[in-house]
């Protein structure tokens, strides 16, 4: 089916573009793009697995997504904590902010290392 092959190519290319952009400059926004394009592509591959078996590619996409989870969780927790914290408790939470910042930086570096070699196109 031509439309299906086209859809797979389009979504695979979108993920590869997002990956390359993140490798060039690992920002939170670019990490988010890798996650969204990856999820979309993964869902397509899972939907049509009966017609287009692609177990290895699907496994690669899943591994790439998993590599970004920790960085995303730390970024969200950091931003949300800053927005929701009770001002009376801010001072006592300085260690938590520091811990989340460190976790975010380390997890982003880890995601960068893992995604550097995770190619989705030949």
């Amino acid at each position: 089916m031509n439309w299906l092959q086209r859809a797979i190519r389009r979504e695979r290319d979108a993920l590869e573009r997002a990956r390359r952009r993140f490798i060039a400059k690992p920002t939170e926004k670019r990490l988010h793009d890798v996650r969204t394009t990856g999820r979309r592509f993964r869902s397509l591959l899972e939907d049509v697995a009966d017609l287009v078996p692609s177990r290895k590619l699907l496994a690669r996409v899943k591994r790439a997504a998993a590599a970004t989870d920790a960085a995303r969780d730390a970024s969200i927790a950091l931003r949300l904590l800053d927005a929701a914290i009770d001002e009376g408790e801010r001072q006592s939470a300085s260690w938590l902010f520091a811990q989340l910042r460190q976790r975010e930086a380390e997890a982003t570096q880890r995601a960068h290392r893992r995604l550097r070699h995770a190619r989705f196109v030949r």
Partner: protein
Amino acid sequence: MKPERIDLRGRGGTSLARQVLKTRAREVQRQAAGLEHRDKGGLHDFRIACKRLRYALERFEDREPPLQATAECLTRLQDALGEAHDRDVLLSVLPPTMPQTERRLREERESYVDRASVLWREVQELARACALMRFE
């Protein structure tokens, strides 16, 4: 939560779209109990099922206009569930020395779950206009 395998052998075009949407809609409906129970794991599974259905709807929305409206409402539902999930993530690392922040986060979480419940009813209502997808 693993996605259900979809039997697509011998199918194409509209029949394929209907089969994909039917399967993903069934998964959403099955996981909707998580929204009623309001627990972290159940909400997470419901959110993932909604996400899969939304992507499928967006893929086929040019075949039937009501699919687009349903997908848009699912996006808002997913956003509300995502906000609740983010609070669950932060609450899991918040120390007990921050009771006021914890209370605020729990209140916000519950309010996002309430919003998700309203949107879930809207999604079901919108789906009634779709010929390609039905909640049973």
